[in-house]
């Protein structure tokens, strides 16, 4: 079904492309948001990725690779968005952590808050590899293809991203008792 839509869209069928975009947009936005941690920027990156997809769809030789290809486009768009805003980082409004499903236990909410804070300290590259691995649940080989890097580098980047995340979490937890103590 998706393959047929891709082929039609490659031939200039905007409606087919609309159906493809509709099916992919939340998936792509999810990736962009997790890399950028900002909904406005994620909107821009998603738009950018879909714009690129339409523009370059005729060059996609294998219609079955549409999903992986769009991952690649949105990661690239997210990187650009992150880079563009670095110079004006003080103007970037970080989104507060989501409140979850409402049924989380208090300690789990705390974990999510910690993860949010720790995740922000990672580079876009590290966020991307973690997102593709743990959100998109992609194998390393596919991540390597999307990011256009060797599989070994994916593994290395995952290792360092996880290590940095753990270090940041530990720093966050060391900081919390001090703050509580100060408040008391």
């Amino acid at each position, binding site marked *: 079904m998706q393959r047929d839509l891709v082929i039609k869209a490659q031939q200039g069928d*905007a409606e087919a492309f609309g159906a493809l975009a509709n099916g992919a*947009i939340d998936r792509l936005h999810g990736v962009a948001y997790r890399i950028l941690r900002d909904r406005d920027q994620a909107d821009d990156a998603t738009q950018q990725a879909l714009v690129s997809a339409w*523009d370059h769809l005729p060059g996609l030789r294998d219609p079955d690779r549409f999903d992986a290809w769009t991952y690649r486009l949105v990661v690239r768009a997210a990187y650009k968005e992150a880079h563009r805003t670095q110079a004006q980082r003080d103007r970037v409004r970080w989104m507060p952590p989501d409140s979850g499903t409402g049924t989380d236990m208090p300690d789990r909410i705390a974990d999510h808050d910690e993860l949010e804070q720790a995740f922000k300290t990672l580079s876009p590259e590290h966020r991307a590899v973690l997102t593709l691995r*743990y959100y998109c649940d992609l194998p390393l080989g596919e991540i390597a293809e999307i990011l256009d890097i060797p599989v070994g580098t994916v593994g290395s980047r995952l290792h360092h991203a996880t290590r940095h995340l*753990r270090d940041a979490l530990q720093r966050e937890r060391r900081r919390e008792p001090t703050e509580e103590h100060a408040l008391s």
Partner: protein
Amino acid sequence: MNENELEQSLSEWMYDDQSRASSWVLGSVVAHARQHPNRSWWRHLLKPARLVGATGPGAVPRPGLVRPAFATMAIVAAFIIAVVLVLPGPTPEPDRAPAFVPSSPLADASPSAPTPTSRPDDLSGFDPNGGLVGSLWLRQGNGERDSYVTLHPDGTIVQVAKGPGWPVGIGTWQPTGARSLTSLVAWPDADPVNHLRPGFSTHRDEWALDEDGSAATLTWTARLQPADGSTVPDVSGASTLVRLQRLPLPPEAAYPSPAEPGWELAVGPMVQGSGSGGVAAITAPCDEPDESGTPPGYLVTHGDGTAFLASYWQGNGPGLWVPTGPDTRGLSSWFGLDPAHDLDNWPVAQLAGTGTITVSEGTSEEFLDEYEAETRSIEPMDEPLPAVDPALWPATGSVWLQPTDSGTAITAYLTDGTAVVRDPRYGTGTGHWQPLDPDTIAAWVAFSTLTSHDHLWSEATTGPDGDTLSISYKHQDKSGGPVETGQAEASRLRIEP
């Protein structure tokens, strides 16, 4: 929290942390797909009129747009860069060259006066006043397959194509007449969009320049060489080219051109007493707290007045540079390579400094931004390097093709002490090389894509015929990955009659 617990928490958090695209995103994208079925509409992205503000059936204005619309789409412009300290001293006069590059000193780095040589890719027919060398913009089709070509006076050529993957072709050229030439360019990224078909392609091009050298026509034949050994029919076509001109830099009158007195001093040895070229790593402004930082761009300034910039963010682009002072250089560069931010004809002027550079992003029509960026050199991966013996130093270029186990190929050209390498696995690398002895060179390169922290060191020894290289290399991800070592064989890319 152990490894598994962290991964589980991370996975749960990512799944729970839901987000959805704003409604305007899909509406605007679909509306523009309807409005621009020929897929050339992306050129409008270059203009301040923002996509999401467009009108038309289905277009949905974005509510509450905070940032200036222009900034979102347009700031991507080409980098400005510049380099670096120009070390004093005369250009060494080679009297003996390593066998891997036939002895054929390029007496004058100026593109207007290369020396006829007896090198295998014979330049004897080269008309020094024919204006063959330099950078040209290759127009093809509706613009989606445009590329930029730089012809170096030593017979090397680099071609940067537009589109996903930002592929780079590297090859060799030789004149066939006062205003004609033939070239052979190898493209290791045979399928830059999909990476579905390992292999590489070669393009054999026949060029004809017009009277003043400002434009050219080109007929090309592309041959795909799939890794599985299958045969694919050749594809041929024709393209037109226009010569790129450097963006004016103030004060214009102060700069010598490559053909004027004073140029040789300005392009004197820059790096370790080597050739007249130089390389600087350009680190974009970055306040990212992560230690890996932002992938830098790498700028090569060749002694012939051309430049090559490999940047993760902007892709690859050719350029032209001029000396702007005793320790500064100005650069105009072009990027037309980003599928989302096509930057056709967006030359950028920038002033160089020492250690830091002033980057002026803009176009010939519009100034965008100016900021300071740091430069740093590309280090040879802790390898000790002997002082270069001028007697060994060749000035001519050479082009090499190295097939890989995966069926792709690595291409590289070596010219005036600088090297540009295209490896589909790592992206585009730039760096230095120098002779170690008459038969051996060392080359150290850094790659500029997401793996920009990957460095490559290699020593290459020529075979008895000068057309083969035995290479030992080591590669490391500077973020701390293991050092990979290996051996490879490469062959000289040669134009067959």
